[in-house]
Structures are given as C-alpha cells and as structure tokens.
C-alpha cells in the first residue's frame, strides 16, 4: 500500500516505458545501439503480457526502418505503406508465437519483407522470381575503371546522397535488390536472408555478389573523380 502511494501515477500506468524514458532523460546523449538493443527483449516481454504502450514503443522505434525496407523492396509508396502497416499489425497479432531465438527486429524484418514481396509479385507477376537461376559470370567484369577520389560520402549533402542511393537501387533488378536490402541495408546474416526469402544460401550469395557489383557500377557515374553529375 505504502509503495503504491509512493509510485508516480504515470509509472503505475506504464512502468517499463516510464523507466526507459527516465533513463534516457538522465542521459541526454543518444544511447549506443548495443544498449538500445538490450532493452528490446524487455519491451517484447511487456508487450506479450499485454502492455500496449510497450508495443507502441517498439513500433515508434522501428517504423522508419521498416518503411525504408518496404519502400526499398516495392519501390511503390502505396504498397510500401500497406506492407509496413500489415507487418506491424501481424507482428502484434502473432507476438505470442515469437520465441525470442532471434532479435524481435529481425523477426519483424522477415514479416515486413514477406508483406513487401507479396505486393511486388502482384505488381510484377512475370518480372520477378527468386527461383530462377542467375545469369552467368561473364558480364560481372567491371569495365572502364576510374578512381573515386577521397570520401564520396563527404562530397555530397545527405539529401543529395539519399537521392543518388534511391535512384541506383530503384534500377536494380528486384530479385537482386531484395537480397541486397536484407543483407546489406538491414544487416541480416546470409542464413537469415535465405530463411526470410525461402531460397538457398548459394542463391543469396550469388544474388548479393551481382547486386553489389551492379550498384558499384551505377554509383561510379556519380562518384568517379571529376564526375559532374
């Protein structure tokens, strides 16, 4: 009884969120990613117990990243939004099935990737297949190489760089793009990427190799020394 009266009303309502916000407020600097990841399982456990605020905190934390993922896969804003929304709603509906053998974020990425892929397949039924073998290696050899000069990241403003990356990834074939996005942007492992897409590890590796080389080739136009764009 005494303890209950000492606890602030806001803390009684949302204990975990209150604690996390208090910790953040006492440290104005951004928490290192490892610390931010460390509390993820607490939020998930609270959400599983029915703490809706904990789930909302997870959504707020990952909504921008999940939208980037679904945009990167579908390249269509309407589809990306639908896929993101359904991914969060489905993850909430199936939260009890989440075993915790991977990070919640990785599990969420898999759900979102599948939602996005479903929509991509609907829009491009004959243009997109992860089952088809990739082409031979003869066209992989880069040509007309030129030095990129010092730090391309520092030569472009953030918005300009964002536009460049968006344009080059937009033109990548969907089956290469999906693998690249999961593996190199969302940083899933090769095994996790294979599992998420339902393809073999060699299939992930061959698509990733081609995606990386093609993106290098396309960025070359912007980054090569003396490029005027």
């Amino acid at each position, binding site marked *: 009884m005494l303890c209950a009266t000492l606890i602030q009303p806001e803390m009684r309502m949302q204990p975990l969120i209150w604690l996390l916000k208090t910790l953040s407020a006492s440290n104005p600097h951004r928490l290192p990613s490892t610390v931010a990841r460390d509390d993820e399982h607490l939020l998930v456990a609270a959400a599983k117990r029915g703490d*809706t605020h904990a*789930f*909302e905190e997870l*959504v707020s934390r990952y*909504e*921008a*990243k999940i*939208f*980037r993922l679904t945009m990167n896969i579908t390249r269509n804003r309407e589809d990306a*939004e639908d896929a*993101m*929304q359904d991914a*969060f*709603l489905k993850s*909430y*509906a199936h939260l009890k099935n989440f075993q915790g053998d991977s990070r919640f974020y990785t599990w969420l990425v898999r759900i979102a990737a599948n939602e996005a892929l479903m929509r991509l397949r609907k829009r491009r039924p004959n243009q997109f297949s992860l089952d088809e073998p990739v082409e031979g*290696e003869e066209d*992989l*050899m*880069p040509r007309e*190489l030129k*030095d*990129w000069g010092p730090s*391309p*990241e520092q030569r472009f403003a*953030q918005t300009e*760089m*964002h536009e460049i*990356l968006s344009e080059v*990834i937009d033109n990548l074939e969907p089956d290469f793009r999906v693998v*690249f996005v999961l593996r*190199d*942007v969302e*940083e899933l492992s090769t095994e996790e990427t294979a599992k998420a897409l339902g393809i073999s590890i060699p299939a992930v*590796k061959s698509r*990733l*190799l081609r995606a*990386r*080389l093609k*993106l*290098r080739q396309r*960025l*070359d136009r912007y*980054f090569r020394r003396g490029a005027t764009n």
Partner: protein
Amino acid sequence: MNCKGVIREISDYIDGELEPPMKQELERHLQDCEDCKMVVDQTRLTVEIFCDSKPVELPTDVKARLHDALHRKLHERGN
C-alpha cells in the same frame, strides 16, 4: 588467382568469409593488380554507404495512418 577469380570471390572477401588460403591468394593478386584493388575498395565502399544510410523520417501522413490502424487493433484486442 586471376581477375575473374577475384570478382567471383569479392563478396566473401569483403564479408571476411574466405578461407585463409584463398584469402592469401586473392590478396597476392591485389598487390599486383591496381584494377582489382580499385574494384574491391569501391565495392566495399558501396556496401558501407548503403549500410550507413539513415532511414528518412516517416512522412507525417503515413505515420498518422499507421498509428490509427494500430490503435484500432490494440483497442480491439483490449475489449
């Protein structure tokens, strides 16, 4: 290892997943081949640039619709 071999293994090399003998062979080639070294460096940088790219903030209207849908779902479950 020739240039074609380097290109074939470039992904595993960048990810640090090459077996030591293969890695040594590839690095020996890079010492003598400026073109392959450039491709390896630029491919590595390509991955780093995408990996480091920050997601843009969620557009306000998209965020509002997401949270509306979420509230409806959470409320539905609460009842």
